[in-house]
């Protein structure tokens, strides 16, 4: 066996699109209930596409357990949200003044938005649970991954680091990124082998360079624009305006760069079972190119599809108008166009999965390497983790993402 394993991704666009499209139709026909099975099937496909040393990953979750988990989560959330909303309204009425003054307006806005803060901890909770569930349902070489229970600890830390990042205007973002990933990685297992996150959070600042450049550019351009506007110097204002636009794009790309940099750094500093190490050479430029190219291709395709549907619709109505019959024929026409339109919307979701999400996964998987892989042979199976809620909270709060 080779001492080094290179990740390889085998997924193809056409079969995944077909799977997405068919399961999406089922989801619509069952008023959304099938989506738990749909997501499970798509995960099975994507997991099975990821291979190391020619052995595929396996996703062992089931749609049924996701559905039951959703029921559990929705009941807990609904009760919680019902009570919270009612209490917040009560507070809004009894404490916040009810007149047209600006203070009253601000007070009411705060009372309404408080419910978002009531949900935020649950969203973080759901994030951790979802990652834990996915780990527990992943296997490679028949050995389970797993993650210890620690969702509330994660919520507390995520809120704390999020607050720190906010009050330092993003300067302490790497601290949060590092510590949260370490919190999760140190609780992760492959079989009886434990992951360990090494490294230092200060090292992530190198990845922040484009974010900082973007920010500085933004501030300078903003000042230029303000000065130009104040002194009626059009050229200066235009320069500032262009600068703000460039800074905005720079900042967006800088954020992607930071995420990629952090992923590669943190992956490189992970150790499994004290001996197995990893490396990742993911390219920001490739990721961004895939997002842009995928986005353009999808827009063009969807534009053509919608144009064709509109053309068909126009033809149907023109035909009906010419014969002067607005009876059953045109109703059938409307229904057909409505169905085509709905199918096109589903297709758009499938295209974004196949043309953006999957290519990014493919690039990442193909650029991850496992070192000292011989030690993997000694890993033993871990005991199973059972979940009552599966990743139902993530489903209910919609924090699950594409897959």
């Amino acid at each position: 066996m080779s001492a080094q394993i290179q990740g390889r991704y085998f997924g193809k666009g056409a079969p995944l699109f077909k799977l997405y499209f068919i399961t999406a139709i089922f989801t619509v026909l069952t008023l959304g209930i099938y989506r738990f099975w749909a997501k499970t099937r798509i995960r099975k496909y994507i997991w099975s596409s990821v291979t190391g040393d020619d052995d595929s990953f396996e996703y062992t979750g089931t749609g049924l357990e996701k559905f039951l988990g959703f029921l559990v989560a929705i009941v807990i959330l609904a009760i919680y949200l019902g009570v919270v909303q009612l209490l917040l309204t009560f507070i809004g009425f009894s404490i916040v003044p009810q007149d047209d003054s600006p203070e009253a307006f601000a007070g009411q806005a705060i009372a309404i938005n408080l419910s978002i803060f009531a949900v935020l901890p649950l969203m973080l909770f759901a994030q951790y649970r979802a990652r834990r569930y996915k780990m527990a349902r992943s296997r490679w070489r028949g050995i389970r991954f797993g993650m210890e229970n620690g969702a509330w600890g994660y919520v507390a830390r995520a809120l704390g680091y999020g607050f720190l990042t906010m009050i330092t205007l993003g300067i302490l973002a790497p601290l949060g990124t590092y510590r949260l990933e370490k919190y999760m990685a140190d609780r992760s297992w492959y079989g009886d082998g434990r992951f360990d996150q090494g490294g230092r959070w200060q090292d992530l600042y190198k990845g922040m360079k484009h974010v900082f450049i973007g920010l500085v550019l933004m501030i300078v351009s903003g000042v230029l624009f303000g000065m130009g506007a104040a002194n009626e110097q059009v050229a200066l204002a235009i320069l500032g305006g262009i600068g703000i636009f460039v800074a905005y794009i720079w900042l967006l790309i800088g954020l992607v760069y930071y995420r990629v940099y952090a992923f590669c750094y943190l992956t490189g500093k992970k150790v499994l079972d004290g001996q197995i190490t990893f490396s990742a050479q993911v390219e920001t430029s490739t990721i961004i190119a895939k997002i842009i190219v995928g986005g353009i291709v999808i827009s063009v395709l969807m534009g053509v599809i919608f144009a064709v549907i509109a053309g068909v619709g126009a033809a149907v109505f023109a035909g009906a108008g010419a014969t002067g019959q607005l009876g059953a024929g045109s109703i059938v026409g409307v229904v057909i166009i409505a169905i085509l339109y709905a199918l096109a919307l589903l297709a758009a979701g499938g295209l974004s999965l196949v043309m953006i999400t999957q290519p990014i996964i493919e690039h990442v998987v193909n650029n991850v390497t496992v070192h000292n892989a011989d030690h993997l042979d000694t890993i033993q199976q871990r005991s199973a983790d059972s979940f009552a809620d599966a990743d139902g909270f993530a489903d209910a709060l919609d924090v699950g993402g594409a897959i």
Partner: protein
Amino acid sequence: MAPDGQTFARFFDGEQGLRLDVELHVDTAAETLRLTHPDLPMGSQYWPLWAIRALTDQARADQMVLTLVADASLDSSLIKTARLTVTDPDMISILTRLCPNLKKRDVARGTFRKVIAWTGGAVGALALMIFVILPAMANTLAAYIPIEREVAWGKTVVRGMERFLGGSEAGSLVCRNKEGLAALNAMTERLTERQDLEYDLTIAVFDHRMVNAFAAPGGHVVIMRGLISKADSPDEVAAVLGHEIGHVESRDVTRNALRTAGSAGLLSLILGDFAGGGAAVIIAEWTLNASYTREAEAAADVFALEMLDASGTDASGMADFFDKIAALQDRGSAMPGFLASHPDSHGRARAAREFARTQRYGTRPILSKREWTALQNICDD
């Protein structure tokens, strides 16, 4: 597979990460698949062909991952079986042909019952929340809102309604004819003189053609001009006014607003997730509201009848008015607001007429002819 050639497959026993390249042999007579490797316990393992399952939704067409049927368990994490990855095309086609249950989906016993039980439990918990807990909380908490807050809030509600009905600025819809207001005042005085009311009433008439009236929190009552025009006697208007005062006194609007805030948050989570639309939430909330308000409406009716009785006003005015509403409803006119939650106008008219027959005191018209004319012209400046 060459006749005398060997076929290998990748085997993982589900206990350790070590991969074994086992030799495969199909025994058609015994209907088993034999796995041979020196490191296997006893050197080989036999898989009954009927028990072999293939993993579904796999990305790779050049291989097939096999597993043995698991001990039926709902918890997928507990399924602990070995995995066998076959890459040899001939072996794949042989196994596809010979394994009868390769694509079978095994469903654990009791699954159906479990799904029904959990779904029922979820629906029951949510129903308990919507119909019992949230209303009870709303009722309790409504009593703790300070009255001055309620009055201020009611003012914003009335103003919002005015804007909704087309009033360009605050107070632009309010009718201000002096004699009309005096008549309205006289009516209110007469209705409430024997009552011990918790709220100071603020009663206004809006210059709008809608046949409607509503109560807002903190003692606000608004009657539309259309309702006064529709009435044939001041007693009819007094009946409606009494009904709205009933809502005011039992804090119906405040309680309803609190309850709605709770159940709307809850419903939007459930329905928003399942059907993906806000329309479903609005419809559900509306239906829910109608079922709650029916009770409150009946209580307000009783309150109004007693008020009419105590003030010596003929309750058949209420009966007459409900008859008119019933006629409007029978013609299928859209009845928003005040009337939408009163489906059974015939029944309410009958109840009022019944009550009128048993009125204890002698009755007299609530307003003089002159006052009634003034009230009818309250919106004329």
